[in-house]
């Protein structure tokens, strides 16, 4: 049901610009106002959330250690520098691998139960999720980078480079980009997993399906524009350059597919800061990953440490147990504590 709601909602989102542009003639609303508003919401919401996180204190240094720590003898007991970093540089590399290679996900295993002369719990490496996630994220990332050609003049060299590599197979005209296929495939795989795997389906909300359908719709509308509708790219660049230089203008040559694409992207941008998609900046701040495992060697300050919380005083302890302590021959700081009360009273 959650998946169905999300799908229907995305269909509705597609209809809005179609109706708005064709029937209501709101071309500058959909070409300029909505994208700019969405971008501002994205920017402000994104920054606000990151600041909220950053302002929350980090009282304790609690990295999850994934390997041998730095020992008193690093030769005898070699440190696992990537999974149990102890310096800033080692932590940096752990983060790089986490962010760019999804290292923790690569570790994934799947459990299964068997009976073979008694119970057997088996674990096997399970890298599908990692593969799906890598396909999806890198495709999306490169697709987004390629779009820079619409917002920059002259077009930076790396964008040309990306386009060249991405289109290296030279299939069709215009040349098919691998990442276009990768993005659609990645979304479908992640979606399929969420629909088919009963456990994952059980934990999925509408808010888990919606971004997948939305991104799928963004990708398909983009593909439609490029390969089928073959929209006027010069007119689009005129509009997008207008957006970044604040000279808003919607050329007449721009047609409905573009408005659909831009509207869906706008929804994605506006939705982003309020959703789980914030895992993108969040991963950089994760305290179990971005801190070195060095609290036994270096002092870490808890900003809200309460110095008033102190140990139950030894003096009180000795007062309470002094008599039996003296009888047992345990040394006392204050010998008076060792005198039985009835004698002391006498």
């Amino acid at each position, binding site marked *: 049901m959650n998946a169905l709601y999300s799908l229907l909602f995305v269909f509705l989102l597609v209809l809005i610009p179609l109706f708005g542009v064709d029937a209501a003639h709101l071309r500058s609303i959909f070409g300029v106002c909505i994208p700019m508003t969405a971008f501002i919401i994205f920017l402000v919401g994104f920054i606000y959330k990151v600041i909220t996180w950053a302002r929350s204190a980090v009282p304790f240094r609690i990295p999850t250690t994934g390997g041998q720590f730095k020992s008193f003898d690093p030769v005898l007991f070699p440190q696992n520098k990537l999974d149990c970093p102890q310096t800033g540089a080692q932590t940096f590399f752990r983060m790089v691998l986490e962010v760019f290679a999804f290292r923790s996900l690569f570790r994934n295993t799947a459990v299964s139960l068997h009976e073979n002369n008694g*119970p057997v719990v088996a674990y096997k490496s399970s890298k599908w999720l990692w593969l799906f996630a890598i396909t999806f994220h890198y495709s999306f990332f490169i697709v987004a980078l390629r779009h820079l050609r619409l917002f920059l003049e002259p077009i930076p060299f790396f964008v040309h480079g990306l386009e060249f590599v991405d289109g290296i197979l030279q299939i069709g005209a215009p040349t098919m980009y691998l990442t276009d296929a990768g993005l659609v495939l990645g979304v479908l795989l992640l979606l399929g997993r969420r629909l088919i795997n009963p456990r994952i389906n059980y934990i999925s909300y509408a808010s888990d399906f919606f971004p997948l359908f939305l991104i799928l719709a963004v990708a398909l509308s983009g593909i439609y524009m490029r390969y089928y509708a073959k929209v006027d790219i010069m007119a689009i660049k005129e509009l997008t350059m207008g957006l970044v230089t604040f000279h808003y203008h919607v050329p007449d040559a721009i047609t409905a597919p573009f408005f659909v694409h831009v509207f869906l992207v706008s929804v994605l941008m506006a939705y982003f800061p309020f959703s789980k998609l914030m895992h993108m900046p969040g991963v950089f701040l994760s305290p179990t990953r971005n801190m070195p495992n060095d609290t*036994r060697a270096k002092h870490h300050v808890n900003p809200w440490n309460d110095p008033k919380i*102190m140990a139950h005083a030894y003096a009180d302890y000795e007062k309470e147990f002094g008599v039996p302590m003296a009888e047992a021959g345990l040394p006392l700081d204050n010998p008076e504590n060792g005198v039985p009360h009835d004698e002391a009273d006498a």
Partner: protein
Amino acid sequence: MSNIPKADELFKSIDYTPPVTGWMETPVDFSPGHWCYPAKPEKIEYMESKLPGLWGPARQWLPSDADWKLPPNWKETVVNGFRERLKKFRTLQLFMDICVRCGACADKCHYFIGSGDPKNMPVLRAELMRSVYRGEFTLAGKILSKLTGSRVMEEHVLKEWFIYFYQCTQCRRCSLFCPYGIDTAEMTMMARELMHLVGLNTNWIMEPVSNCNITGNHLGIQPHAFKDIVDFMVDDIEEVTGRRVKAPLNEKGHEILFITPSGDVFADPGIYTFMGYLLLFDYLDLDYTMSTYASEGGNFGSFTNNEVMKKLNAKMYAEANRLGCKWILGGECGHMWRVVHQYMDTMNGDTQGPQMTTPKSPITGTVFDTAAATKMLHIVEFTADLIKHGKLNLDPSRNDHLRVTFHDSCNPARGMGLLDEPRYVLKHVCNHFFEMPPQTTREQTFCCAGGSGLNTDEIMEIRLRGGLPRGNALRYVQEKHGVNLMACICAIDRATLIPLADYWAPGVTISGTHELVANALVLEEGEVRKMDMRQEPLPGVEDEDDDWTPPNMEEA
């Protein structure tokens, strides 16, 4: 334990198919066996007198009752406490926001593997809190409650927290596999702090906490009784080795303060590990003392709230200062070392006296810079360094009747990184050492299912289910290599792994690492031992003429 099914039947009952009802609609079972007994009112009253405002009303109640006698303003207290902690703990704030429910953590939790209950998937355990976070604190959650999996704080939600946040052992295995490092242990700690505010607690945690504050240890052993027990162990050591060891208590002017979990003073088989420490220290003529006031290495405060954790931990430095010790040596314990490694210096480092210095082994001269801030060294590090320098005369053949594997405790593994030192020590004190499968050891180790204050008998079936992954890995090496002993470096393990092994891998016994060190330690040239630390005869010595005994002929 009588109504617990046999291992094979229990295993067959595990079903990973989710229920037909959504998780928010699936009712929670509050029947006995699903929860730990609440704290006795006097324990809460005592804690309230020491740390006011953190405990809610002290009262008699049971989770199987319909009315949990919550205070009238409980909802406000929990929601405000939640808001406050979002600002105090970045982990909580971030982990509430960034989970994508990818499910990588789902089958990493031992309680899920053994029960199939979807709320034991770390993702859903955390959703119990996240749903409330979204419903109470986020705009999207308030508007689109169902679609975003949001709900507001209600009594049945709080009750569900009580069941499931006392079904997490804070072992952090899920956090290792999470692509964002989301750590359920953090959320469990926060949920428990919030529940304490309105008087939801368990006696198995709060009695040790209040005992520890009063007597210095969880078990409430008073100083004279502590001395009696230690003296008793000194007698036993003499019985085994012929050597009368010294066991200094509360003495001033020694270099080292030794602190170990009190479980090792009290119960079989921890006592043999404790005897191992005493024997080793005497052999080295180590300049050390123990303390009855700081006679607890463990810290059940870390299963309660950060305030108690700090208060109980503060005794360690306070006692080192009073006795004039330069550094602290810590015994084998799991959560104790999580606290010492990741919290102690931050919480109480500023109370270290000027006499304290970076630990330096008086025997080898090694300076342990890795402990420069806490001034506290793990006994396994200390012993590994001794072995490396050839300072111990070891006869591993005295452990030849044992075929040994090693259980990494969650906390030293994933909250510290102490993995190779215990293996190094074990391989030097026994000849037959075998590893369990790699998906169940080192950083991927499985919990004993009794950590974080859940090592109580009233939830034995839950513990045994959670013990399946460890128990099954143990059974694997038992069948493959004839393993008959699982060593560990944790006092809770030494208590909890026994029923676990009896259930899933009968015939395997449990020991601490320093028990095996003591067995192998040759006190003087030509020393002959007739029995091990448990006073069980060593194979081959009953009959002097029989010069060969087949290995592994009898149960340890």
